[in-house]
């Protein structure tokens, strides 16, 4: 009870002294059945959770490609039939509509009674090739939800909505945490995943969670730390290995090796030592591998990040890894002021993803690595002039040898303005929740259905009974 009051009132939090905080923190770790306590104790339950976890020999990795700002995904994938779908698109999108010839039809028509044919933006030939070869699929109209909502519920203000709907930072948090009713989530679903799966990895100072795009909530907050590196460089203390600075290094090491009575000092020294050791181990692991033979476009910032991911994956052996998560990001998708560069950005994503998949093929790991996209939100169907504004549901895609490719999952919405999903200006209520999207990926990584429901995605039960019915969408081949 007292811990709950402490967390609820931020002003109280600031006035608690250190002794009080430590006492309360320890109390909070014992006995509480709240989600917060469950998350803090994931590591303690790791051995139990590990017993439920797939103990296959295979390596598996998830690569999150976050399109920061809100991708205008209805100009990525759109209906292209002249008789149905495209006229609605044209009417709704006005000045930001693309010609029909800017899309190339892909896949089968949507199931009856829909019957529309979807087209992929022509700037994404690599993604089209992956789709056509059964290595990529689209998940349509995905977005953050607390529970299923209706337009009427929104209009009469009875709907339970994700906090900060239509705002960048909150929606990014919700996508990465899977906790849409939490203003300050303590951890991401990737971190919770890692806490359950890290026992499958061997001893290593290097985290199973690697970020090429700095701090992110997706991988943060769990027992496993995050190795954050630049796309072109490996983190290290400058001059650490230079002979001329050996005395400084010796002094630093003696400071870090000292015995500290103070818990915070001890913890800081330990984490600093671990970071230095991790950096050295990581560098050594990468240098022990042959260079990646796949060509990546070094002027493509996303491709550079994915190349670093590929290099890290190639070093999974020396790093003793059987499970890893990666986070890369491409910003600039907040197209309020115009969509002129949007096709080129789609092309950038397509090229990078295509090169990354080829790298996985070259490493003979294409069936063991799955790449998925995420973004703050979709964008308004109607323009604001030259650009589009924040919306809700949008289209994502997944790539990998274990993807049940060449298909569309979820429901592609009607683009008729004012329909039952349209909350205004073509801001569509998602028909697939982020939780359902992520659940398929978590199950594929080897987390049991029970743990997906109880520990990784606590909101999932509002949409789908994963224990009874398995994967919500089924876009991953589970025997892969």
């Amino acid at each position: 009870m007292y811990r709950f009051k402490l967390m609820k009132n931020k002003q109280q939090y600031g006035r608690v002294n250190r002794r009080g905080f430590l006492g309360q923190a320890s109390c909070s770790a014992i006995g509480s059945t709240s989600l917060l306590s469950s998350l803090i104790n994931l590591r303690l339950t790791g051995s139990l959770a590990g017993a439920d976890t797939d103990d296959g020999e295979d390596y598996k990795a998830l690569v999150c490609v976050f399109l920061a700002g809100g991708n205008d995904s209805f100009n990525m994938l759109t209906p292209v039939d002249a008789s149905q779908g495209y006229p609605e698109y044209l009417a709704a999108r006005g000045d930001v509509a693309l010609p029909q010839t800017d899309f190339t039809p892909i896949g089968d028509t949507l199931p009856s009674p829909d019957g529309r044919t979807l087209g992929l933006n022509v700037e994404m030939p690599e993604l089209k090739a992956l789709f056509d070869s059964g290595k990529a699929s689209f998940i349509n109209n995905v977005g953050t939800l607390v529970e299923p909502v209706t337009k009427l519920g929104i209009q009469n203000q009875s709907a339970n909505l994700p906090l900060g709907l239509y705002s960048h930072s909150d929606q990014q948090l919700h996508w990465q945490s899977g906790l849409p009713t939490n203003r300050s989530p303590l951890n991401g679903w990737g971190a919770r995943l890692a806490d359950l799966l890290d026992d499958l990895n061997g001893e290593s100072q290097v985290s199973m969670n690697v970020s090429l795009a700095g701090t992110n909530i997706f991988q943060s907050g769990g027992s496993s730390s995050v190795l954050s590196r630049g796309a072109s460089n490996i983190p290290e203390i400058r001059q650490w290995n230079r002979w001329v600075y050996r005395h400084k290094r010796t002094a630093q090491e003696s400071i870090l090796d000292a015995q500290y009575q103070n818990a915070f000092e001890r913890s800081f020294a330990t984490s600093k030592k671990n970071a230095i050791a991790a950096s050295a181990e990581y560098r050594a692991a990468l240098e022990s591998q042959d260079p990646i033979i796949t060509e990546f476009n070094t002027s493509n910032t996303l491709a550079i990040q994915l190349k670093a991911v590929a290099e890290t994956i190639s070093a999974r052996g020396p790093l003793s890894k059987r499970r890893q998560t990666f986070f890369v990001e491409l910003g600039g998708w907040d197209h309020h002021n115009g969509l002129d560069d949007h096709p080129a950005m789609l092309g950038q994503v397509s090229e990078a993803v295509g090169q990354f998949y080829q790298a996985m093929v070259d490493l003979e790991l294409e069936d063991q690595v799955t790449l998925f996209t995420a973004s703050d939100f979709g964008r308004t169907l109607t323009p604001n002039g030259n650009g589009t504004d924040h919306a809700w549901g949008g289209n994502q895609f997944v790539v990998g040898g274990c993807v049940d490719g060449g298909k569309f999952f979820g429901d592609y919405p009607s683009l008729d303005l004012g329909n039952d999903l349209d909350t205004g200006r073509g801001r569509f209520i998602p028909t697939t929740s982020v939780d359902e999207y992520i659940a398929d990926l978590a199950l594929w990584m080897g987390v049991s259905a029970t743990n997906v429901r109880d520990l990784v995605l606590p909101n999932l039960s509002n949409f789908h009974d994963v224990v009874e019915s398995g994967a919500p969408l089924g876009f991953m081949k589970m025997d892969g």
Partner: protein
Amino acid sequence: MRKFGAVVLLLILGFILSRIGGPTSEGGGVIKGPETVARSAGESEQVRFLGENPFTLEYGKSNGDIKRDLEALRDVVIDCQSLIKNFDAFHLPGNPEIIRFLQGENPENLAWIPAEHSLIKSDIGLLDRNGNAVFFHRLSGLQIEYRSAGADGKHWTDDDVVVR
């Protein structure tokens, strides 16, 4: 007898003073009478207009400018967020929705902005003093960037006036 008289006098005095001050809200602050509430805040008798505020005093006034207008708007939104703590839980995608919320379409039926204003159009929302819609850029659940299109009338150009 004297005490009785004093009590009666005090009661009469209190009655007179209360009539001068007008009806009070439960919180003790003075609000306008019912007829003024209806006029200022809309047709619903349930909507309670919270009285003069930076928006009503400054927005669009001849002695102001766009920047000051947006600052006044920002101030009332912050005030709204302080009274309606779960502001970020509502469906407020943009201009018309946020303005209607401030006009009393909220669970507390509190209004900061009058129903009728020369720079509010029901289908568009709030305009700047150049007649262009103000853009509410949701940065987070509670943090909003307020944008005027500026003199060129086009958003997201160099002459935009932006307030956070």
